């Protein structure tokens, strides 16, 4: 861990220098990452652009305000013999710095409203996934795909064993040793069964909670949505690029809030069709055992079966 630490720190300087201004997107969180991932959907690109625009607008205002402050602090020091003037208002100036911010804010609100309206529109989706948050795992049910009802494909997705071992208090397993096959550090970001989704399909998510409020968040998709018991929220995505996208529960949900990650495995359409077909036939064979498999062994409310 020590030597790994040193290499990490040496890499850091390079990463830091590029991170702030880099336009490259990370698929998953990386050490020294300083900015939002650009993501893999149209919406996530637009959200990323909003982030960049608002960031640079703030930098611009900051340069002006802090610049004037610094000049004042240098030029008008008593120790340098500055004598205070007596004026205390200026109607013209005050009007100007009321109106200019209004214009800047309107300039920010305009694109944001457009992106929001698009992100809220779940119509014309070709697929529906139901997501249910439980303490402390996610359940995914495939409801329909390309206009056809999916025949009982659903499963729970919980923290992978390797992470679970390493996350215990005084564990002998190091979080640094939890890695994917490609060598990516997946501690607390890996699951036993990922949510498999096709690329290039508009997917509608119906999101709800089974016990307390959770929040379903994959940064690369560009949004999070709360999973609330008694309420079904809708959201959508259309993933452009195959890959593995990791996220976490984002609403405090109790003891293991940090241990219910989300992993989306986006695959080409043909591959997804095969995957779905295989699971549909499994489901018909295995109907009884599937319905009996309640997560966590707890009694479930009616909402769970859906």
């Amino acid at each position, binding site marked *: 861990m020590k030597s790994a630490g040193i290499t990490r720190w040496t890499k850091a300087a390079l990463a830091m220098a590029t991170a702030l201004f880099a336009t490259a997107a990370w698929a998953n969180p990386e050490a020294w990452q300083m900015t939002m991932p650009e993501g893999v959907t149209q919406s996530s690109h637009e959200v990323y652009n909003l982030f960049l625009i608002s960031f640079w607008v703030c930098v611009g205002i900051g340069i002006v305000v802090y610049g004037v402050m610094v000049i004042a602090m240098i030029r*008008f020091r008593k120790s340098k013999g500055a004598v*205070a003037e007596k004026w*205390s208002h200026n109607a013209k100036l005050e009007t100007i710095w009321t109106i200019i911010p209004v214009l800047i804010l309107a300039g920010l609100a305009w694109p944001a409203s457009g992106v929001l309206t698009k992100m809220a529109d779940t119509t014309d989706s070709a697929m529906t996934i139901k997501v249910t948050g439980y303490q402390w795992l996610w359940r995914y049910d495939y409801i329909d795909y390309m206009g056809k009802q999916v025949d009982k494909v659903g499963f729970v997705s919980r923290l992978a064993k390797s992470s679970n071992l390493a996350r215990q208090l005084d564990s002998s397993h190091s979080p640094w040793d939890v890695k994917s096959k490609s060598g990516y550090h997946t501690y607390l970001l890996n699951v036993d069964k990922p949510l498999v989704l096709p690329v290039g399909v508009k997917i509608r998510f119906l999101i709800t909670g089974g016990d307390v409020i959770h929040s379903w968040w994959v940064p690369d998709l*560009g949004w999070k949505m709360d999973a609330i018991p008694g309420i079904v929220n809708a959201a959508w995505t259309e993933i452009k690029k195959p890959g593995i996208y990791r996220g976490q529960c984002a609403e405090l949900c109790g003891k293991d*809030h940090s241990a219910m990650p989300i992993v989306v495995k986006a695959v080409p359409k043909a591959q997804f069709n095969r995957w779905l077909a295989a699971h549909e036939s499994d489901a018909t064979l295995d109907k009884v055992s599937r319905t009996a498999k309640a997560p966590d062994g707890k009694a479930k409310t009616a909402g769970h079966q859906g």
Partner: protein
Amino acid sequence: MAHAATIDHHEDHGAPKGFVRRWLMSTNHKDIGTMYLIFSCTMFFIGGTFAMLIRGELFEPGLQLMQPVFFNELTTMHGLIMIFGAIMPAFVGLGNWMIPMMVGAGDMALPRMNNWSFWLLPVAFIVLLSTFLLPSGAPAGGWTMYPPLTLQMGDTVAFLIFFVHIAGISSIMGAINIIATILNMRAPGMDLLKMPIFVWSWLITAFLLLAVLPVLAGAVTMLLTDKYFGTSFFNAAGGGDPVMYQHIFWFFGHPEVYIMILPAFGIVSEIVPTFSRKPLFGYKAMVYALACIAFLSFMVWAHHMFTVGLPVGAELFFMYATMLIAVPTGVKIFNWVATMWRGSLSFETPMLFALAFVVLFTLGGFSGIMLALVPADFQYQDTYFVVAHFHYVLVTGSAFAIMAAVYYWLPKWSGNMYSERMGKIHFWISVISVNVLYFPQHFLGLAGMPRRIPDYNVAFADFNMISSIGGFVFGAAQLLLVYNVIHCVYFARKRATERVWEGAHGLEWTVPSPAPHHTFAMPPVIEDSQLAHGDTTH
């Protein structure tokens, strides 16, 4: 001078003798103000200790110090204690001390109620802190107490709700007292639009408190009946709605945010002109901006809930309303900068803290504008980006303003000058470490680290370690504040003058230092040149 007569008559009856009569039974605004400030400082260190434990656990990935449940107890209690125990009582303490002296009143309008509002606070916090000893542990559902999670907590919930009620009654009575004092006890000639900005900021804050604390009391009472009396206000299985709690809570919670920042605006608006030796720029605009922010604060609550699945129309409305708040807030920032322009600046400790406030509160405002954009908030919500944002406005905002106020008025309270050198050391260590602490948290949030987690992916390790180091230094540096105050009160040899600061204006600087136990038993004659904002032409 008017005050001369006041003091001649009243030096003879000073503070009552004996601990119980002087403090437990106190009706004196200065003594009660002192007790509020000591209480606030105590809570600041208790809440701060929790923060140190939190940063200790987050120092490295993996769990080293505690189980996740205890971590959740710490984050919940840290929030409750810092908000209700440290920040709010500090402002009430400052208001108690300064408002009567600033408006030329003999004391607060309702001195006995003043005593009661203070002494309810230790009771409330004993109730809250005692939950650590309960079998069910301290509350661990976050300071926002969202159901259904909070209702899973066991009997600690009853203690939590009782705490909110007692602390709420205390704050409501404090607010009533401040409104009564400001509206009824001003010396003749102290017109509303001649009052110091600090008094204005407190008048508006007090109305916010009156308006929203009963709402919080209502929300938690519904939690109580849901838990113990079988109601289903927030229980979906019984026809209730967990989101309704969030609407009610944030209808309190957003004005609460301004309750914690408006008095800070007031303090900075006193300090910047004093050390710029120039009148406050745009006094009236400053008052209207305060009122405008307070008004808007009732219409933006749902920006804390952009991801609960609101209809698009609601999200658009709350986005626009939230962005609108940036306008009056901007006016305040521009006016502070304009106050400095062509002034004659000196940089004593209160000014340093006030300038750090302007810079760093503005930084928190920038992330606030970024958070207001709903689609982007879908990414930021519930991440460390939000944690960074509200700690910039609450620590480098509210807490820095409180520290500025303590250094600014301490010579008036104690009659001694604090050590400028030690004050500056405290300032520079604090301002550097606080940025090491909070700035990297922006990056963590953007990279995808959720808030309220005791453990995280190793990608977040480096910035968390930096943040924790900053946190430990910042926490330790606050011991210097205690040292500086104790040293000033008991050991400093340099006596303070009446005026204390060359550029100070306002009635509080016309009474001796230390301020006698009773001031303005006879209303002072207001001379316009003495007005705090130092300008009478508007």
